[in-house]
């Protein structure tokens, strides 16, 4: 599953369930069919327009990484 970064942020202040992950990047990815999903980033930070691929799914949450 590949797509493009529609928008992104890096979270510094998180609820208890995510405090151990801080700072972490949350993104919205647009797929080729126009649909979107909210997920997380593994590895290097990404910016709007970057191509990404889905690396894994943890607890139903898609994790993406930048396509080199």
């Amino acid at each position, binding site marked *: 599953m590949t797509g493009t970064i529609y928008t*992104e942020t890096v979270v*510094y*202040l*998180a609820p208890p369930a995510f*405090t151990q992950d801080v700072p*972490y990047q*949350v993104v919205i990815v647009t797929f080729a069919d126009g649909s979107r999903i*909210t997920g997380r980033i593994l590895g290097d930070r990404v910016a*709007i327009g970057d191509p990404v691929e889905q690396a894994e799914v943890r607890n139903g*949450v898609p994790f993406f990484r930048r396509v080199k």
Partner: protein
Amino acid sequence: MRPVAVAAAGKTPFGAFPDRDLRSLAVEAGEKCLKNGHVSPSQVEAFYLGNFAGPSFVGQNHLAPYISTALGIRDVPATRFEAACASGGSAFFHAFSAVSAGLYDCVLVLGVEKMTSQPTARVTEILAGAGDCSGEIKAGSTFPSLFAMIARRHMYQFGTTREHLAAVAVKNHANGALNPDAHMRKAITLDQALNARPVAEPLGLYDCSLISDGAAAVLLVAADRARDFTDKPVRILGVAQASDFVALDQKPDITTFHAVRRASEKAYEMAGVGPRDIQFAEVHDCFTIAEIIALEDLGFVERGCGGPYEASGATARQGEKPINASGGLKAKGHPVGATGVAQICDVFAQIRCEAGDMQLKRHSLGLAQNLGGSGATCVVSILGNV
């Protein structure tokens, strides 16, 4: 549909009040409002409560009769409205609808939230319940992060800058310094806003509204009976509520709020006025980017022009379109369920020329915009002199 007026208002200060509970705040605002309207509890024909998360913040449910009976209001319908940060606005909209339809002549609308008894991380978690918990929230989104993603996209599409965002914070803090009931009465500099610690990039601490306790109330009456309650009633010329997707990733375009556009179109049509006629507004600046987008969605400026408009000074007290003369959610404070009702109180006070140091020169036609979640609910109200 018959005309409806606001006859009286009452508020608590907003802030962190460790020795006050939710009900005592609500009762204080409600009693002030009834006293200002020279109304006894037995004259109130229905009670509309705006509250977002009392059950989570303080562990109390069934809040509407819990509060109305403490005010001495007995027997009549008492109902809680929950629409995230637009809970107060939604209670106001539904109260208006009932009076306008002829169901009641005199109703009390009250908004309250008691937030500061929980640590910030837990508050963040409770607020996140206004998002889509099966998707965006499960992925680690917080409300600051949802608005941060909105800001990033707005910057990308329109060239909005961090300085534009900071201009909103500086202006609203300057306004809040004049508000005796504001949570934070402290002016800040542009440098302070720009160099604050990050919360969710590109938003820093001063881009975010406050975690507050507080309550606000207004008395709505049939306009033809308004003079029984006050010499200075204020007419509700237009009010509308609209809705949209809860999840940010379901919206086709996150740089505009569809519900704000729909609610404002309806409210303008009902009032028979346009955005240019509005002399001042209280808008929902839960985050600085939200005020910038509100200016665009309410039609005060073209799309993408909100940032430069803020930086130009046009929205300052002395500007052509004063926005959030009360200090807004940013400085006045944001006790979530109280916010939408407090906005009505602030517009009401301006129109009656009772806003003290906050009083604006042009004050006969004002607008309040109350947003829920990342735009899933919006209530827009237009108030004016009778």
